[in-house]
């Protein structure tokens, strides 16, 4: 697992904002230049939690199957004042612990999270070669026929079926859109962190 540490940010909405995107690239480069993932995790003030043993075996198998590298998904956190930062940090760790317990072949496994002093919180996830479905659909060189798309659609519905029947139930869009504040005339206001 330690072989390659690929740094790749989730194609997040922040991708659309050129200023954020450039800022993100800088940080990603910074991580890249570090000796390795393990070192980085040790050096930074980090929050890595151990998965239960039986899950760990499955996790490593899964990681080997798909790719040996890890994926970093960027997470934008607030660093405004110390009190809220501490609180957010605590709930972030708690939440990551919950998310890492969710395992299903159609769910992108969350293996851990990194909270650093200089870097913004990140998620360590499985590496997915083809990026997001959005990238795939926008790539005109890829012919997508029924034999490609049907398994993908089934995977999405199975993944969500799993999330919806999990205990406690996980709603995918849920928390993401909770943090959106939409004014009455449907213009989207600048959003702030919302914690449950």
């Amino acid at each position, binding site marked *: 697992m330690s072989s390659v540490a690929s740094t790749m940010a*989730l*194609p*997040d*909405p*922040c991708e659309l*904002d050129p200023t*954020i995107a450039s800022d993100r690239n800088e940080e990603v480069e910074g991580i890249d230049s570090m000796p390795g993932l393990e070192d980085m995790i040790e050096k930074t003030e980090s929050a890595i939690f151990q998965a239960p043993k039986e899950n760990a075996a499955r996790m490593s198998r899964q990681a080997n199957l*798909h790719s040996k590298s890890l994926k970093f998904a960027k997470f*934008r*956190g*607030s660093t405004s004042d110390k009190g809220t930062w501490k609180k957010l940090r605590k*709930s972030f760790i708690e*939440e990551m612990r919950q998310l890492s317990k*969710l395992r299903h*072949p*159609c*769910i992108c496994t969350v293996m851990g999270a990194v909270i650093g002093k200089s870097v913004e919180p990140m998620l360590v996830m*499985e590496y*997915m*070669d*083809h*990026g*997001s*479905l*959005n*990238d*795939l*659909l*926008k790539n005109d060189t890829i012919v997508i*026929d*029924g034999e490609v*798309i*049907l*398994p*993908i*659609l089934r*995977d*999405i*519905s*199975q*993944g*969500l079926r799993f999330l*919806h029947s999990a205990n406690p*139930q996980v*709603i995918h*869009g*849920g*928390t*993401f*859109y*909770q*943090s*959106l504040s939409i004014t009455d*005339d449907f*213009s*989207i206001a*600048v*959003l*702030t*962190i919302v914690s449950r």
Partner: protein
Amino acid sequence: MKAANILVDRKFRAKVADFGLSQKKQLGGTGTPFWMAPELLRKEAANSSASDVFSFGVILVEVYSRKDPYEGESTKDILKEIADKSIRRRPTVPDNCPPQIRSMISDCLVDEGEMRPTFQELDTRLIRIDAEAVDIKTRSSRINKTVSLFDIFPRYVDSP
């Protein structure tokens, strides 16, 4: 949930990512909530499994159009129209969409959350469909079907 949150591995199998995150800073105008269910836009209901089903419907449209929903139109107007019960604006389903998927889209995009199918139901419906039925009929694939080797290389020897 949107197509950008579905990740695809090297075997072209999809995995759902970015689920259940409660702390996420978004900046104005970047996260366009076209995938949001109308009841959320009207602020009538909190997020539920039904709102995920709505997003899945929008993803189905994305898959077949290979474009962002409502491309090139004003976000503000569209959101207003999606939420309005008398207009019920929804993304236009492209013509290349097979009938089974078309009916699935219209079921997912129903205005009332309780009327939408669950993922359990969608799952069984998707399993019943076979791959040929959901082929995306693009112009290029149609061209490929009509062009034969004989159109490019003339046949010199007639078959008896």
